């Protein structure tokens, strides 16, 4: 028994020592900036780190559906609300939750939108386990940075300088018509959400409640990804969690998607024109909640106006050439 206690104590000390070692290495290896070369990937979503503290009021989380269809600058233009798309291609919920907590470290969003497409995306336990370490043990996530590690970084604190001018939105100009056969056909069944995904959603919902943020589930229009089964399940889920739910796939009048023109890849994602319609509805929805402030004339938010100006200049130029092409 004495030997057992002694060995257990040794084990505990060993683990503590290892934790210290890992913590120190983590501090040494975490990226000092949010540029492409520091993060390597999903730089558009990580741009939120460079936004001034507590300036983002609305957060959009999700996969490619989000950055294809929601344009924060238009919301700013029309209502003066600040929002950001923390979305990345094929984002799974383990990544969603990472962006969520990352945002909370410097922002206090009043409304959090979860796009519903990735709620039904399955991923194995192995991935959950690997990424559970991403936030508490950054060493695991960024270990590969040894390849171009600069020892000057060692004594610098992180300073995020890369601002995303489009706030996570990605502009898609092309269009490719969708086949709407069977889209949103009546169905009594509801789809299945895996236990792992449920856990992530509940953590996000609880954290929203604790931080006084309103959680909204949002299904953006997509003929390929959305159906009634999934809709039914999210209706149940939003009731369970007391969250709002917007399914744009059923809002045929409010969000009048023209499936011949508004999708870039046969119904999978929106293009610019689809995004305009989705964003217009969202802006209206946000203003109706009455909990957001219009920062349009606040000098601290002057950056947003500059971003908007650059964006509209670009887009207007493109639209006018498009018109000219059509005319001539």
């Amino acid at each position, binding site marked *: 028994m004495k*030997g057992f206690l002694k*060995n257990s104590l040794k084990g505990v000390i*060993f683990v503590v*020592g*290892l934790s210290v*070692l*890992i913590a120190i*290495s983590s501090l040494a290896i975490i990226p000092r900036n949010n540029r492409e070369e520091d993060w*390597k*990937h999903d730089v558009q979503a990580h741009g939120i780190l460079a936004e001034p503290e507590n300036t983002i009021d609305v957060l959009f989380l999700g996969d490619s559906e989000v950055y294809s269809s929601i344009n924060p600058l238009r919301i700013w233009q029309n209502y003066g609300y600040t929002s950001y798309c923390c979305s990345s291609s094929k984002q799974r919920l383990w990544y969603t939750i990472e962006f969520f907590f990352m945002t909370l470290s410097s922002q206090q969003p009043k409304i959090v939108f979860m796009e519903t497409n990735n709620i039904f995306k*399955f*991923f*194995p*336990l*192995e991935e959950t*386990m*690997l990424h559970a370490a991403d936030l508490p043990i950054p*060493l*695991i*996530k960024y*270990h*590969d940075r*040894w*390849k*171009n590690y600069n020892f000057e970084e060692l004594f610098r604190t992180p300073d995020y300088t890369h601002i995303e001018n489009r706030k996570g939105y990605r502009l898609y100009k092309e269009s490719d018509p969708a086949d709407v056969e069977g889209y949103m056909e009546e169905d009594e069944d509801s789809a299945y959400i*895996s*236990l*792992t995904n449920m856990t992530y959603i509940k953590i996000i919902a609880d954290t929203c409640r604790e931080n006084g943020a309103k959680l909204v589930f949002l299904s953006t229009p997509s003929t390929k990804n959305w159906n009634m089964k999934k809709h039914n399940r999210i209706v149940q889920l939003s009731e369970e969690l007391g969250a709002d739910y917007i399914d744009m796939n059923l809002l045929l009048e409010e969000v009048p998607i023209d499936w011949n023109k508004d999708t870039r890849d046969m119904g999978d994602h929106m293009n610019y024109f689809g995004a305009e319609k989705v964003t217009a509805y969202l802006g209206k929805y946000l203003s109706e909640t009455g909990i957001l402030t219009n920062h349009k004339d606040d000098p601290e938010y002057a950056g947003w106006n500059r971003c908007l100006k650059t964006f509209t200049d670009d887009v207007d130029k493109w639209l006018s050439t498009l018109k000219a092409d059509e005319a001539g």
Partner: protein
Amino acid sequence: MDLSSILLAGSASAMTSFFSLTFLFLFLPACLILYAAVPKAAKKYILLAASLIFFWLVSGFLIIYLLLTVLSVFLFGKWLDKIQKQMKAELSKTEKEKRKELKQQYVSRQRKVLLLAVLLHIGLLLVLKYSGFFTQNLNSLLWLLNAPIELEIPRLFMPIGISFFTLQAVSYITDVYHGLIKADTNILRLTLFMSFFPQIVEGPICRYSQTADQLWNAEQIKYKNLTYGLQRILFGMMKKIVIADRLDPMVKAIFDTPNSYHGGIIFLGAVCYTIQLYMDFSGSMDAVMGIAEIFGIKMPENFQRPFFSISISEFWKRWHITLGTWFKDYIFYPVTSTKKMKNVTSNARKKLGNHYGPLVAGGVALFCVWFCNGLWHGSDWNYIFFGLYHFVMILTGNMVTPLASKFFKKVGLDPNCSSYKVFRIIRTALFVVIGELFFRSPGMVRGFELFGRMVSDFSFMGLNDILLKKLSIDIQDFIIIAVTLAFVFIVSLLNEKGVCVRDQIAKRNIVIRWAVFYALIMFIIIFGAYGFGYIPVDPMYANF
């Protein structure tokens, strides 16, 4: 529904690797804690339950095949046992003169039972593993003969580890037949022997006499075993995650589009593949041995620093040892021990002398062994070629040896001098690399194409460009692979010289001991090829 959907769907491969987080941080700790917590009498059942759950997680309902295999050999064992008991009883009643005849009768009855059992299990293995291959070749043949028939290629299920546990099953039943072991009276013990979870995926192939009793006599975890075992797992993990997995994208790129490379680069690919295979397989074996060691179980080693071998024949005594021994015990000696073969050997020895005499019978047996070895690795012609290549190498080696020693005597050189030894080691490694080139290539024809290009166009032109741009391997990758390989080499060299590195570490004070652990862990975390940008690589021998 939920549990299985989390653990099973899409993630089956996660559990087959002993270096997956799911296995290392969930499954194994759960087993260890339960195992340590229950009283001694219950420990074996924890091992058994863990093994069955593991197999179910990896293979789902195919666990039925494993269980049926166990049941079958159990019953065959009982049957043989019954005959043996009858024989004993009868023999004691019979007069001395008639005993021999009576014994012969019983032995022949036993032989029939054994034959039935072996045919059943090997037959099932052949059907499940090779029917696709056979129909494919039959189709080619029919096509050549202009026959207007095309057979459908069957897609049969393949329980993981079937190639490994079938061999264990056959060895068990054969050993019972020979009276080397008693038929097991407890089916649970036999199940544990057949299904022990660390070894079910990639071996080692154990014999009943080696592990069954150890497993059934499961003891409390000892502190020393725990630390030794963990250390070995870490060492294996380093081999697999730092070296093998880092080499994987490059090997894949070269073998996927070999037409775009010069021969020198194909050679480099074959060398890297050989390193990858060795690190992957022996690293996994280190994990298997380490896990078993924690439970206090000593398994037969599968590797003994094979790249120090001075001949191909020696190489195969040190690479995948348990497979080699299996073939030797259950194919090579039985074939050479048949009456006919013994006569052949006796006659040949009189005519050809001591060295070449046994080569006649030995050659036949060797052919059987290597044909089976090739086939065991996979159902394709390049695997069969791989086996026969080694057969030719070993046979040639044996024929040339006396000539070589005569030559050395004449010239007055010492064949045991170290420079010649180093030369032989490098030569052996080169032969192995060529074998692995065929082993890795998609099909035998492609293997010859690659080999042809390697010989005719041996140039490294454009290597730099290819490495950096096409294979996305940079200088840092090479440095880290080189450093780690150097470390593994030093450890191997010390072991080869008879220094037990692990005992040496254990003798040092706690600061050094812990520093070794910490260094290994941090090295793996930082320099492992995992996470963003890496595709997890399944253990390579799990598919054989």
